[in-house]
């Protein structure tokens, strides 16, 4: 009853004309920044923060929440249409989403992303509303061993993405290796920085993602010339029949995965989308469809990354601990407004918390209403001859990468990795595992070293803690089950023969 009262008060605040307009503005801004590589929701919120000095905290937080929700769909647009992930959470969507676009199914890809995002976002907000305190306690149970085990489970995807297991593993390990560049987080020792000051921060994943997926794709496809990037006729946006049958399970699974992973501080939508993709590939009857335009490869990660947005608010509101980089900036905003994030926020400033929760429902509806009709229009961009399409893509890549850290060195790195991406695409080496390794590698190493420090060097810490043990067993099953099943099937076939 208290929850319902709070929610109704929240809607009363969020639906005032000013706050409603701020929600729409936030969603639109979020979509734009999400589509631009190098500019993410955290940058957009940080840029707008000074403008909100002295403003109403509820209105400002409503706008920021809209930016956060809108940014993931904006990233989806560029991932599907031009194979450039605007956000890290869009990398897995780019794998199958762009293939769907090349087959004339960009509308369906964007449509299922919009519908999946709406469902997952709405369910995620319900979860935030009802389960925040309990989930916050669960999040507190996650220490370094649990993070290590979760990331290990995520890394099992290295072999699951792409046609070639060996090449996928090689590029994934290469990504892990690139993640060791820069200053070692435990000891402060510089590693593999080639005496370059600008490499002391390591390699930012957005530079590599834009290079491999954006520039690499352009170099591999530029010979299309006057041909269209799309092979077939652009069709409708609503997934029907077989498409909906395949998507609905993926959306449901992605929602649960995204919300639970998003609750964990420091993980966020990126890991959620990776885990959702692996799960979809593992449960699919025909995993060979993945990487070639499997709709589940879009529905699952998209649902996961939007549910993770809601999940990331759980530790922020309940514990005062950011669930992601963006919520870290929003936490700063709350402090700037004189509010105290943490368990006391629900008691002392319940009106603001409920207004933000209500605005997230509204933001999800706005996203669906805005994007479903526009999905077909966006899809028609691909009927433009590729010779007109790719130069603007190149310009966006250069601008986005430069904007990320105002570094010309990053642009040169983009060119180098772009050449690598072209070579990889030419010879069938998957790029997604490289990104996966680069993103997860630093967290994996930190969690491993912290865990072993805690346990005084004993590896049993990973098996003696129940959550960690379950996740490690799940990772072992994910790796060992497919070859074991294949061997058993071969043995059975031989016996029958």
């Amino acid at each position: 009853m208290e929850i319902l009262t709070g929610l109704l008060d929240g809607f009363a605040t969020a639906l005032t004309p000013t706050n409603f307009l701020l929600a729409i503005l936030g969603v639109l801004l979020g979509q734009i920044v999400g589509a631009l590589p190098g500019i993410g929701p955290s940058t957009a919120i940080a840029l707008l923060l000074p403008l909100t000095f002295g403003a109403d905290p509820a209105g400002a937080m409503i706008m920021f929440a809209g930016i956060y929700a809108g940014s993931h769909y904006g990233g989806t647009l560029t991932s599907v249409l031009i194979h450039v992930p605007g956000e890290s959470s869009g990398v897995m969507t780019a794998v199958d989403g762009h293939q769907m676009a090349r087959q004339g199914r960009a509308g369906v890809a964007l449509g299922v992303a919009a519908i999946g995002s709406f469902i997952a976002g709405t369910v995620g907000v319900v979860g935030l509303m009802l389960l925040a305190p309990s989930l916050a306690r669960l999040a507190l149970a996650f220490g370094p061993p649990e993070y290590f085990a979760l990331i290990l489970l995520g890394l099992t995807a290295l072999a699951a993405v792409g046609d070639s297991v060996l090449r996928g593993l090689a590029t994934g390990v290469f990504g892990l290796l690139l993640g060791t560049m820069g200053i070692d987080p435990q000891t402060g020792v510089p590693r593999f920085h080639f005496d370059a000051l600008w490499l002391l921060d390591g390699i930012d994943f957005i530079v590599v993602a834009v290079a491999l997926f954006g520039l690499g794709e352009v170099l591999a496809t530029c010979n299309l010339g006057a041909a269209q990037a799309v092979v077939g006729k652009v069709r409708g946006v609503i997934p029907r029949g077989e498409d909906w049958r395949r998507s609905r399970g993926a959306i449901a699974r992605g929602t649960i995965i995204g919300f639970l992973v998003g609750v964990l501080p420091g993980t966020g939508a990126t890991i959620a989308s990776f885990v959702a993709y692996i799960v979809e590939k593992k449960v699919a009857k025909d995993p060979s469809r993945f990487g070639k335009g499997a709709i589940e490869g879009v529905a699952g990660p998209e649902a996961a990354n939007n549910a993770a947005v809601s999940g990331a608010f759980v530790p922020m509101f309940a514990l005062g601990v950011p669930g992601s980089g963006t919520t870290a900036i929003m936490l700063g905003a709350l402090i700037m407004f004189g509010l105290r994030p943490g368990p006391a926020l629900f008691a002392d400033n319940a009106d603001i918390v409920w207004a933000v929760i209500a605005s997230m429902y509204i933001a999800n509806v706005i996203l669906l209403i805005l994007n479903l009709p526009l999905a077909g229009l966006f899809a028609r961009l691909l009927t433009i001859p590729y010779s007109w399409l790719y130069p603007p893509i190149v310009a966006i890549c250069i601008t986005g990468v430069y904007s990320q850290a105002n570094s010309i060195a990053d642009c040169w790195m983009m060119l180098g990795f772009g050449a690598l991406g072209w070579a990889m695409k030419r010879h069938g080496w998957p790029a997604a595992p490289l990104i996966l390794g680069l993103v997860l590698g630093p967290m994996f190493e930190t969690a491993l070293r912290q865990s072993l420090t805690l346990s005084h060097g004993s590896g049993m810490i990973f098996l003696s803690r129940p959550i960690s043990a379950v996740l490690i067993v799940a990772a072992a099953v994910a790796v060992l089950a497919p070859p074991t099943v294949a061997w058993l099937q071969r043995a059975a076939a031989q016996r029958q023969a």
Partner: protein
Amino acid sequence: MRDRLLNGDAGLAALLGAVGLYWMVGAVPLGFWRGFAPAAGFLPFCYGLVLLALSAAVLGQIGTGRADGAAPDQAGFAKPVLIMVVIGVALLGLQSAGFAISIFLTLLVLFVLVERLRFLPSLAVTLAITAGLHLLFRVWLGVPLPKGPLGI
């Protein structure tokens, strides 16, 4: 077998193997263990070793002709290399000529010289995209893109 090995696929595998080896050598001075936990060189060494092994396995697969994954794309080299050269020149001029001029010239060269599209439509599209990126990134988002002698 010689032909199979002398192609880009093998080149990629060899490149990654070389990187793995470099990482293994570079990790040794960082140390493998410190106190209770791995030191800064432990995981880089492990990653380098695994990468070297995987690269060798891929080379072995290529050498014995066992297919694993997609067949190589047969499209030409000339245009991609030309595009990379154009981007390289743009980056060289980015900080001296400024963002707007570099991007403008990059787009115009790609449209007119590389793709051989008609000049006037190319110029119109180039102007629109350059202006759009300038407005979006510099004016609206406040990103300090490099300014050239014309102040843009």
